[in-house]
């Protein structure tokens, strides 16, 4: 289930699932607390894909998960490089991303990109600032969003200590346009998508709810789309 992958500046761990001779997809989770909230759900989706004859990898990017690199030292460009190198190592044919995971798929050597509820960096950083400001209010202080543009120590946000360069890089980032792109969103999401599916925004809560059903719906969507794109699944 676990393997290592080498990227330009180090070695990290990844989950590997599915039949040995199957086409491989690579998954990128969103960063920080949403990764914690979505990992169980995402693994359910990847196991469902394995049952549909599709193998997968879920790489820990440098400065996330089990990486020995601290969150404080995480660099967006390293995430993109590492994800691309993991895709290369596994021979992935498609990149699947969830929420702000969409910010790391641009450099992946794949022709197919599937994005669930993609979020741009400006929106992600706005949410992080809102959390930081709410915490500040509870402590009787304030937090000025302009801090991100000034030099200074990393900023604690909901337990994660995030460097200002990372916050600036995230804020400027957006999911890149791509050929071979499929976007899936929840029915409650007004933004454009190729298809909308029923469900609630499970990245907002830590308690499992309808995530099994949604995982199966999304796995079916990925499998059907790959088949349409000419990717043959293992029997």
């Amino acid at each position, binding site marked *: *289930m*676990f393997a290592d992958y080498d990227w330009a500046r180090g070695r990290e*761990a990844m*989950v590997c699932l599915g039949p040995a001779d199957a086409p491989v997809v690579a998954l990128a989770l969103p960063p*920080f*607390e949403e990764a*914690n909230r979505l*990992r*169980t759900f995402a*693994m359910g989706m990847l*196991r469902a894909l394995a049952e549909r004859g599709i193998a997968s990898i879920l790489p820990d990017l440098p400065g*996330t*998960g*089990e990486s*020995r690199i*601290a*969150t404080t030292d995480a660099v967006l460009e390293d995430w993109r490089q590492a994800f691309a190198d993991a895709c290369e190592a596994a021979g992935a044919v498609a990149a699947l991303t969830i929420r702000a995971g969409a910010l790391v798929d641009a450099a992946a050597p794949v022709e197919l990109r599937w994005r669930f509820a993609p979020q741009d960096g400006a929106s992600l950083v706005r949410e992080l600032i809102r959390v930081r400001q709410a915490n500040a209010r*509870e402590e009787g202080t304030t937090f000025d969003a302009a801090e991100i543009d000034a030099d200074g120590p990393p900023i604690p946000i*909901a*337990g*994660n200590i995030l460097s200002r360069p990372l916050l600036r890089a995230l804020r400027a980032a957006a999911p890149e346009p791509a050929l071979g792109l499929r976007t899936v969103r929840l029915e409650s999401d007004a933004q454009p998508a190729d298809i909308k599916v029923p469900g609630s925004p499970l990245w907002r*809560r*830590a*308690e*499992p709810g309808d995530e099994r059903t949604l995982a199966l719906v999304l796995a079916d969507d990925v499998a059907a789309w790959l088949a349409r794109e000419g990717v043959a699944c293992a029997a």
Partner: protein
Amino acid sequence: MRRLMTFSCEGETLAATLDEGAGGTGLLIVSGGNELRIGSHRGMAELADALTVEGVPVFRFDRRGIGDSTGENGGYTSSGPDIAAAARAFRKAVPHLTRIVAFGNCDAGTALALHHDGAPIDVLVLSNLWAFEELAADTPPPAAIKARYLERLKDPRALWRLLTGGVDIAKLAKGLRTVATAEVAPVGELAERIAQGLERFGGAVTLLSCRRDNTAILFREAWKSDRYAALRARLPYHECDSASHSYQHPPDKAWLRDRLLAAIA
């Protein structure tokens, strides 16, 4: 060296991370809530790093239905088999291990207190023990309590946030404190079972508490009761001067690390 591995539990495949160490006493970290084995803000992975530099082997795992593990998530109440299987897997992965100290925060601590039987665990370090009885559905709202706070208490998710640091309980209406300490009977059946579990355990137990953490405040009500008198007399109980539920701030992290190293020594 950090190694990722799997082990079996009741026919399911559980994921674990071992941080190797030359020491003969290892630390088994049991996760609370529905947290991944890395912990919120990767805090448990960070704690493992801090201990492994001292030569302590550390083992963290996702119980069934959590993170990378297969199976159904049954919460802390059914996690006994997962804990026992993890302890056995830890010993198998580190043949030079002679002693396991198990650490759990919040309901992970409660799981260890209740379900240690049969697990090859030698020492318990339990923090901010979860001893909260759920409010009965037919409890009449006390006159002093604002309806919306009572509504929140009846919603398990809001209750969880309330007790694990999402809300500053001191800032709510005074009536809420009345509910929390008197109307909701925190010294109940769960606190009784925890006491029995602690009395049953054959090895050393250390209790940790964050002074202004809501969950710890509620357990303290039980800890101060007559039922716990004998346990109070013999179990070390250390308090961290903090409102954090999960040792979020650097001084709290250092305090926790030092308490664990003391239990391991």
